[in-house]
């Protein structure tokens, strides 16, 4: 029944030390970031920003523990970058990371585009948007190609209504969900220019750089390994050539182009195996040869 006197409690508060390493181990922050490093090639600025956010959340928790003011930080983000630079992939992982950091309660990702938010007639938009927001509560709402929400050429467009509801929830229920907007760089810039409310409510603008040729090659090998294929040494050489040629062509979309090229190479490998001997070794089944890639129309020109 003894209560420590005021002097004792002051002593305890002022000398309190938070072991950040132990806290880090508790919250298991290291492992999602290590996974990110391992599974995603390149993207240095993105990883840097995620590390910063993780450290910030850790410190926020430590501050809370010693009784310092710890308002919920704003974690709404905008991902900008060219096609195929990994915006959606990172968003998916972001939901898991924020969940493990204890910032969102459930850690699921609701991925939507304009069609899911904006209705087709008057009075349709608000319930639709609210429905999506309710589903995203406790997790991450990922709005792909967010600039389609705003149609400057049509002032009666219902997109504006969806934007207003989104802004309201982003402001008032910051602890309930994290909104991530994604899109191509220039169009996002003009979207933010015409919706200043959005710009100011989003704390983290993360730009996804294009991959260079060596990163694309690592991605190709990683993708192949994930589906238990591998490139033969000759195929690897052809792949390097393929990447440099493909980068010059229009509509190059980074990792997505590489994934498509690999998918087509797998089809050609299957044709080659079927046309060849009646038996195929395990080795042959998982190897993509140079000719499988060389047959691409990229080499035709």
């Amino acid at each position, binding site marked *: 029944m003894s209560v420590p006197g005021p002097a004792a409690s002051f002593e305890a508060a002022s000398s309190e030390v938070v072991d950040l390493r132990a806290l880090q181990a508790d919250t298991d922050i290291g492992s999602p970031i290590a996974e990110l490093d391992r599974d995603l090639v390149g993207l240095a600025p993105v990883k840097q920003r995620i590390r910063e956010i993780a450290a910030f959340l850790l410190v926020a928790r430590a501050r809370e523990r010693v009784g310092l003011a710890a308002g919920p930080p704003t974690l709404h983000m905008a991902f900008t970058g060219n096609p195929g630079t990994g915006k959606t992939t990172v968003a998916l992982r972001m939901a898991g990371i924020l969940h493990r950091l204890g910032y969102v309660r459930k850690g699921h990702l609701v991925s939507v585009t304009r069609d899911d938010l904006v209705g087709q007639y008057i009075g349709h938009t608000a319930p639709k948007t609210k429905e999506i927001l309710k589903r995203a*509560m406790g997790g991450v709402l990922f709005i792909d190609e967010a600039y389609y929400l705003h149609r400057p050429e049509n002032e009666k467009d219902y997109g504006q209504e969806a934007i207003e509801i989104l802004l309201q929830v982003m402001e008032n*229920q910051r602890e309930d969900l994290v909104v991530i907007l994604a899109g191509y760089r220039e169009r996002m810039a003009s979207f933010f220019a015409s919706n200043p409310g959005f710009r100011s409510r989003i704390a983290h603008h993360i730009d996804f750089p294009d991959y260079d040729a060596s990163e694309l090659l690592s991605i190709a090998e990683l993708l192949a390994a994930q589906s238990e294929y591998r490139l033969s040494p000759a195929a690897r050489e052809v792949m390097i050539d393929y990447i440099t040629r493909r980068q010059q062509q229009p509509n190059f979309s980074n990792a997505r182009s590489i994934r498509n090229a690999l998918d087509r190479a797998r089809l050609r490998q299957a044709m080659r195996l079927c046309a060849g001997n009646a038996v195929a070794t395990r080795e042959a089944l998982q190897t993509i040869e140079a000719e499988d890639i060389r047959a691409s129309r990229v080499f035709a020109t």
Partner: protein
Amino acid sequence: MHVTQGTFSFLPDLTDRQISDQIEYCLRQEWAVSVEFTDDVHPRNTYWEMWGIPMFDLRDAAGVMAEVRACREANPNVYVRVTAFDSTRGWETVRLSFLVQRPANEPGFRLDRLEAEGRTIRYSVHPYAADQPAGRRYKPEQANTAPGDRR
């Protein structure tokens, strides 16, 4: 008279935090949660007004709590309940239902006796509030008036 309908109704009224935790439980069981309200609280009145459609595919109670608050705001002095529907084959029914708002004054029920053929008597339960037209039953100034005591 404190109306006791649904789960937890013999306990003190739930706080928002407790309501949120109960909804969280429902969502973990993958039940579809919905919000309903009524000003006719007769025990046999099963079908209350729906506040929006049942919420499927939710993961977190925050979405339901937003609807609960919106419903309370729009219907300040009536009964509001949260129901959780289990769509699993074999159940296909409401598994949990509890009040999340009640009017400030609950006048209670009276027992009506109807003398039928012979010496038969038929009984029925009649909420005092139902003497007022729908929509005016739980206005604060009328909530405590006895039947027949109209101005």
